[in-house]
């Protein structure tokens, strides 16, 4: 504690408290500024004409009727944008994948239903849509490729179906399988689904000729990277182009990447010198924005007589869709790298086939690669338990990495970092979560109900998440002349509460009220670099940068104030924006007075660098009831334990987990992008693509623990964005198996009522 205890105690820490969000008021008043809310005088609306054919040769385009339509200003096809290179890779950009990048408008071939082929520019949205309907595409159909796991072959005239294979591993897998007591094998799959934020995408570009500045509004997630690369694609520089993030209606990984439409509005604003506005409709969103998650895994475990894992061998097929987008190999790479999870796996091999299909291209979605590989690993643990004849909890306990093994080097790399679990007490969290669920009583009560004829059961899933991806974040903190604080960051907000969390951290470091802090994010003209918001990185990376810059600013303020107050900086403190003497007596001055006395000097910038990610971990417990007639699954109980190292705002952490759970349930039970045999997407409205409602998402118990602070940053922070979603498919599958008393019954997600009813009908009774 400080030198004058009375005063230090008066400074109540705000980090760690569930204070109200700074973001809420404008959003509740209807004053949010989402992409569609941005308009400029004289703007043109852009409408994209998309391929209605899954696979074909583009023989010709007749846009004459559209061009003649009243109110239409221009029509673009590939030849108008031929000078624009394909969209570059942001992460995991393997060289061999480059030929598979997407051009902003289709050239020669169309490769999925929804691919942009033509854009129409018109006076307003209704006119643009009328005219777009008049564009005729002459496409010679080719046989679509829809199965990602069959034999490889030609994708079309220019491409092959398997552009690359991810290989990861360590240890002697062959020897382990030879020496094994038994081998447990499974074939599993996760369904094609995605983030589907409530706000569809949107991009509005405006060229200010007088200043030679090109602006794009509607940015999200990674505005700085997108600024640099869109600029490069259209022949500009990072200095004469700016991206602006307004309110963002949910991100979940899929929103904010560079898509064709972002580049098209920018190129068109430059070409026509008119503001160009594009707002996606929902059907477009479901066939054009990144899909995710669809993988098939063939996994084997070598085990000893006690069910201890000796090796895991996993070969999987990643259904990427038709092009390699900005995430390139990221999702299969993460699936391969994160599969071992919280267990000791002495030898490991993963072979991940990246496959092209004539479906919407894919990218990351909350817990990318981990939702998939956690499902696989945890199904495997249940299968091992069944094989050995012991309980699912016991098999996990036997295989967990011990606390004393931390930090634990996994001997695998992903996202350009070496995976070292920084801290964790997995067994402790398992115990705590089981206790929170009242596990023995829950199991006993379910057993009793099953005996009475109900199909009820419970399952457990464990996982390790990753977060806090570097390499760096820079933050600038200023005291304004009115005493208010401005924190300028290089991150983005997708609705998760960034402003509040950063303000809490800065408030503690500075000695001010968090409501006096204005956090800037997503504005490329306010700070030169920024890494954005993805991979649960913001609170860890930007949080520590905010703390560093705030501490620096505090030191500067005390030094400047000491000169004016004729004392030593060490004799001063900042309490509620007031610089006071630690002695408790004598004159004081406010930060506003100091800022006015020393204009421009109350500013500090600092950077946090990190070459390793930090690894939160969790346990999910689900109890379900299966309707034997309809195959519907109702969640009766859901308990989550998650260790985040240190929670800046526990309520915001809980809500991240709650929202993640809802999305995880969607992927486990409801959501699926279905295609027919011709590659026609069948899930193109919210009546076909079913997302959980208030009826399907259960009340849940969330236990946030801080037993394993990260040693890699001073506050011990780990990210909380993805632990709600990660193991939901796994936990639900385990609970359904238990309800049916059929180990391994669930091999494929989502477990839709139709699928489960078929399963019950085909093989009634226990296995």
């Amino acid at each position, binding site marked *: 504690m400080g030198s004058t205890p009375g005063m230090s105690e008066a400074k109540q820490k705000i980090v760690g408290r569930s204070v109200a969000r700074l973001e809420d008021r404008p959003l*509740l008043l209807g004053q949010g500024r989402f992409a*569609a809310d941005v308009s400029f005088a004289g703007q043109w609306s852009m409408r994209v004409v998309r391929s209605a054919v899954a696979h074909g040769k583009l023989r010709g385009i007749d846009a004459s009727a559209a061009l003649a339509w009243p109110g239409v200003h221009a029509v673009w096809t590939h030849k108008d944008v031929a000078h624009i290179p394909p969209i570059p890779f942001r992460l995991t950009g393997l060289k061999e994948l480059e030929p598979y990048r997407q051009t902003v408008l289709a050239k020669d071939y169309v490769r999925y239903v929804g691919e942009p082929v033509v854009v129409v520019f018109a006076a307003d949205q209704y006119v643009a849509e009328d005219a777009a309907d008049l564009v005729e595409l002459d496409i010679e159909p080719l046989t679509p490729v829809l199965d990602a796991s069959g034999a490889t072959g030609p994708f079309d005239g220019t491409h092959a179906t398997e552009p690359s294979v991810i290989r990861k591993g360590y240890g002697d897998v062959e020897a382990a399988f030879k020496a094994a007591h038994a081998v447990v094998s499974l074939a599993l799959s996760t369904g094609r689904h995605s983030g*589907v*934020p409530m*706000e569809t995408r949107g991009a509005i570009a405006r060229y200010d000729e007088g200043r030679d500045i090109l602006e794009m509004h509607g940015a999200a997630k990674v505005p700085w990277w997108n600024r640099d690369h869109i600029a490069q694609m259209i022949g500009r520089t990072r200095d004469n182009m700016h991206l602006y993030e307004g309110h963002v209606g949910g991100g979940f990984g899929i929103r904010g990447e560079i898509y064709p439409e972002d580049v098209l509005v920018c190129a068109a604003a430059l070409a026509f010198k008119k503001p160009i506005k594009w707002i996606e409709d929902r059907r477009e969103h479901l066939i054009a924005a990144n899909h995710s998650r669809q993988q098939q895994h063939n996994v084997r475990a070598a085990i000893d007589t006690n069910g201890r894992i000796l090796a895991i061998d996993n070969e999987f097929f990643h259904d990427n869709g038709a092009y390699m987008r900005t995430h390139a190999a990221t999702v299969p790479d993460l699936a391969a790298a994160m599969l071992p999870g919280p267990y000791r796996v002495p030898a490991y091999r993963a072979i991940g086939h990246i496959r092209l299909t004539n479906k919407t291209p894919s990218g990351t979605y909350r817990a990318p690669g981990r939702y998939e590989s956690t499902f696989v690993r945890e199904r495997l643990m249940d299968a091992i338990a069944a094989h050995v004849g012991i309980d699912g909890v016991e098999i996990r306990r036997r295989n967990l990495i011990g606390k004393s093994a931390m930090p634990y080097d996994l001997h695998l790399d992903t996202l350009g970092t070496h995976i070292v679990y920084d801290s964790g007490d997995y067994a402790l969290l398992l115990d705590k979560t089981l206790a929170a669920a009242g596990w023995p009583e829950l199991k006993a009560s379910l057993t009793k109900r099953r005996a009475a004829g109900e199909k009820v059961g419970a399952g457990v899933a464990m996982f390790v998440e990753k977060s806090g991806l570097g390499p760096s974040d820079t933050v600038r903190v200023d005291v304004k002349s009115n005493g208010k604080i401005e924190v300028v960051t290089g991150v983005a907000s997708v609705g998760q509460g960034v402003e509040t969390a950063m303000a809490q951290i800065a408030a503690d470091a500075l000695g001010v009220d968090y409501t006096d802090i204005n956090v800037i994010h997503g504005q490329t003209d306010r700070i030169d670099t920024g890494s954005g918001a993805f991979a649960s990185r913001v609170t860890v990376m930007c949080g520590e940068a905010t703390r560093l810059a705030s501490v620096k600013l505090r030191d500067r303020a005390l030094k400047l104030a000491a000169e004016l107050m004729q004392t030593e900086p060490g004799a001063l403190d900042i309490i509620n924006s007031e610089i006071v003497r630690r002695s408790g007596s004598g004159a004081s001055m406010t930060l506003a007075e100091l800022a006015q006395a020393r204009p421009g000097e109350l500013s500090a910038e600092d950077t946090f660098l990190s070459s390793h990610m930090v690894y939160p971990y969790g346990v999910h417990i689900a109890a379900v009831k299966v309707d034997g007639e309809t195959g519907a699954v109702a969640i009766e109980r859901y308990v989550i334990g998650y260790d985040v190292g240190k929670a800046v705002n526990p*309520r915001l952490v809980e*809500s991240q987990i*709650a929202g993640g759970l809802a999305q995880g349930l969607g992927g486990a039970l409801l959501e699926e992008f279905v295609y027919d045999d011709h590659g026609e997407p069948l899930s193109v409205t919210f*009546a076909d693509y079913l997302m959980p409602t208030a*009826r399907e998402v259960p009340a849940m118990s969330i236990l946030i623990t801080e037993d394993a602070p990260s040693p890699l940053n001073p506050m011990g922070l780990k990210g909380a964005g993805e632990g709600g979603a990660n193991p939901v498919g796994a936990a639900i599958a385990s609970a359904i198996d238990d309800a049916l008393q059929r180990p391994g019954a669930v091999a494929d997600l989502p477990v839709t009522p139709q699928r489960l009813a078929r399963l019950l009908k085909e093989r009634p009774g226990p296995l």
Partner: protein
Amino acid sequence: MTDKSPLTLTINGRDHAIAVEARRTLADAIREDCGQTGTHIGCEHGICGACTVIVDGEPVRSCLMFAVQAEGRQIRTVEGLADGETLHVMQQAFMDHHGLQCGFCTPGFLMLAVGVLEREPDISDDDLLDVLSSNLCRCTGYQNIIKAVRAAADEMRK
């Protein structure tokens, strides 16, 4: 296709004289022609409920209604909920119970809940859950929305 007819929309007690095509949705008219962008459009096919407004006391999907159908009727949007600086109890409850994250679906939920509770103040918890399941949220997992609406319902009954 571009024949526009004059029309007056009454939004939050204020008249907006506009001219729109017969096919223009109420949602587009409120947002684009009347400049009230607090009402959001999430699907344009009546499922997500982000565009919910109250018309003559009834919550409706403004994407499924034409602007011309709303002439002469009282339209209420999220912009009309607060009384000056004072939030409506429903808005306050959403803040107190952390019933929003990105805030995109929020105006729709607010108008749905207010509209229903004004008509049916004593609605049962289960019926209320049915009502709330008619709108989609992708961030919160709904529990905090349910808590907020129940708390506001208690307040509104007082």
